[in-house]
């Protein structure tokens, strides 16, 4: 199937089509939540073509960006130009973050990557994210979610052609997460803020690793 093979070329266009252009606001919100103060050490899981990476850098963060696809990383580097040298690029799958040292980051950002993972992978990655954060560290996850109630029905109707378009353009099949905040809580985080876009179908969840009480 030819159109799947050149996916990274069309990834950004596909994403814009799926989200009716709202993806830029989402990227910005993730970067703002993750890079709360200049100099913050941020791990970005699934950096894709580097849209969030670029915004994190612009906010003065020290970024480690991870993606399993060499083609995506190449495109992210190209997007950032000179600034790409300031990023630690890791060509790995999200499941390999267990090799990174404990409490090495002030924030973890995951934008539109969780919905491409299986539920087992999501559980694993969120637990690991907790381990990688310093106490008080922040998690910013954004993704496609399934809205509830009447909106949910509307969402399903709207989503069918969008999903098809995304599949044709970007070769990406994503599965909206049913309960993003719930999965974040289940991994041991305290959720501090939630935001939604596009009739509630895009969601940002900001959460904290709580301060270790025993350590005080």
């Amino acid at each position, binding site marked *: *199937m*030819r159109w*799947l*093979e*050149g*996916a990274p070329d069309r990834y950004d266009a596909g994403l814009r089509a799926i989200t009716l252009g709202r993806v830029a606001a989402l990227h910005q919100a993730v970067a703002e939540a993750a890079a709360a103060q200049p100099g913050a050490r941020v791990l970005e899981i699934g950096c894709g073509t580097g849209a969030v990476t670029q915004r994190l850098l612009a906010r003065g963060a020290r970024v480690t960006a991870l993606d*399993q*696809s*060499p*083609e995506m990383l190449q495109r992210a580097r190209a997007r950032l130009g000179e600034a790409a040298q300031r990023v630690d690029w890791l060509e*790995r*799958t*999200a*499941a*390999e973050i*267990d090799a990174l040292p404990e409490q090495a980051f002030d924030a973890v950002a995951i934008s539109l990557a969780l919905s491409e*993972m*299986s*539920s*087992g*992978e999501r*559980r*694993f*990655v969120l637990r690991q994210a907790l381990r990688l954060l310093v106490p008080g560290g922040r998690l910013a996850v954004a993704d496609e979610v399934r809205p509830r109630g009447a909106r949910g029905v509307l969402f399903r109707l709207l989503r069918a052609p969008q999903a098809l378009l995304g*599949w044709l353009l970007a*070769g990406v*099949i994503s599965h909206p997460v049913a309960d993003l905040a719930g999965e974040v809580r289940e991994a041991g985080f305290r959720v501090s803020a939630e935001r939604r876009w596009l009739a509630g179908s895009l969601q940002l969840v900001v959460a904290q690793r709580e301060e270790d009480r025993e350590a005080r």
Partner: protein
Amino acid sequence: MSLAARLREAALEGLQTAFRLAPWPTEPGLRAVGRPDELSPVVVTGNYALTVRRVRRALRGVDAWLVVAPSAGINVWCAAAGGHLGTSQVVSALKTSGVEQRVRHRRAVLPQLCATGVQAREVSRRCGWRTRFGPVYADDLPAYLASGGEKTEAMRRVRFGVRERLEMAASWGAPCSLVVGGLAWLVRPGFVAPLVGLSLALPLLVFTLYDRLPAARRTTFTALAVLGAGALTWAAGGGTAALLSAAGAAGALSWLLTFDYAGSTPVEGGSHFEERAWHVALDLERCQGVYSCWEVCPEACFEKPTAPAGGRPEDRRIRIAHADRCVRCGACIVQCPMDALAFEREDGRRIEPEAIRRYKLNLLGKRSVDAGASSA
């Protein structure tokens, strides 16, 4: 299984076979087959629903752990070649599926056809699992496992026999007849039955006869299909409208079905003429007799030397004995630890193993440009 469950399984199998060109994702993760324990074998496959069901069925009577790796809901061979089932996906599945908490060993059997995308040695380096490429077909898994990993030539080779041909015909016939039948129903409901018949008959002809046609076969086949459909309509007493729609549908369907014939079948050497100009070249100086190529080649193009092992290094070198059968999947190049294999062209251009590994089968043409094919 209850009768209802059996019926449901049979219906799903039929539906997914008929529409197997579409992705049919199933949740990746761990499945227990039979009653496996901490010493049972671990078998890996992609998350294509049809394959997962067939692997489970093939493993009936065997106690094993089945790790379903994410492959975008696409079958193993296409997913591996298209970059959807690679080393990362296998590493991720082994680490996150929970299989590490269930077994004491770290050995897994991979489907042979994922060898174009998954580097067995990289899997081991990145997560500690030792992997081997098992048989091409799930049906051979029980014999393979029982023998402790002995792979016969039949287990290593891709087949395109009556069953595979009929399956491909069905998987093209179903969507074609839906589209053509749907269009006919909108315009002239009376034409639905004959046009659906045509949409089922043409794929059957393509997947049984096309590879046996001589040169200029695309034009030949299309012309014959148009003439044949026209003649049948005329013999049945159809009017001008019927004649035109039959001939038009036959032409359009023939064009479509023969367009990516090589991509739908394992009998041709690459999808495009551009690809067929490349061949696998062996650098004998580098070959150390590891035989990964021999293990993963789906057309058994390689032959091991007959001399006893342990002799001089040059006696252990592999030989490309059947280059004519090569389908240019690149699996041998991807797996060779000595980088002794590469794609080469008559004009001296070359694509190095590292480029093949990174860019998978992103069309040889595109890959040769993007990945910087070097000129000798």
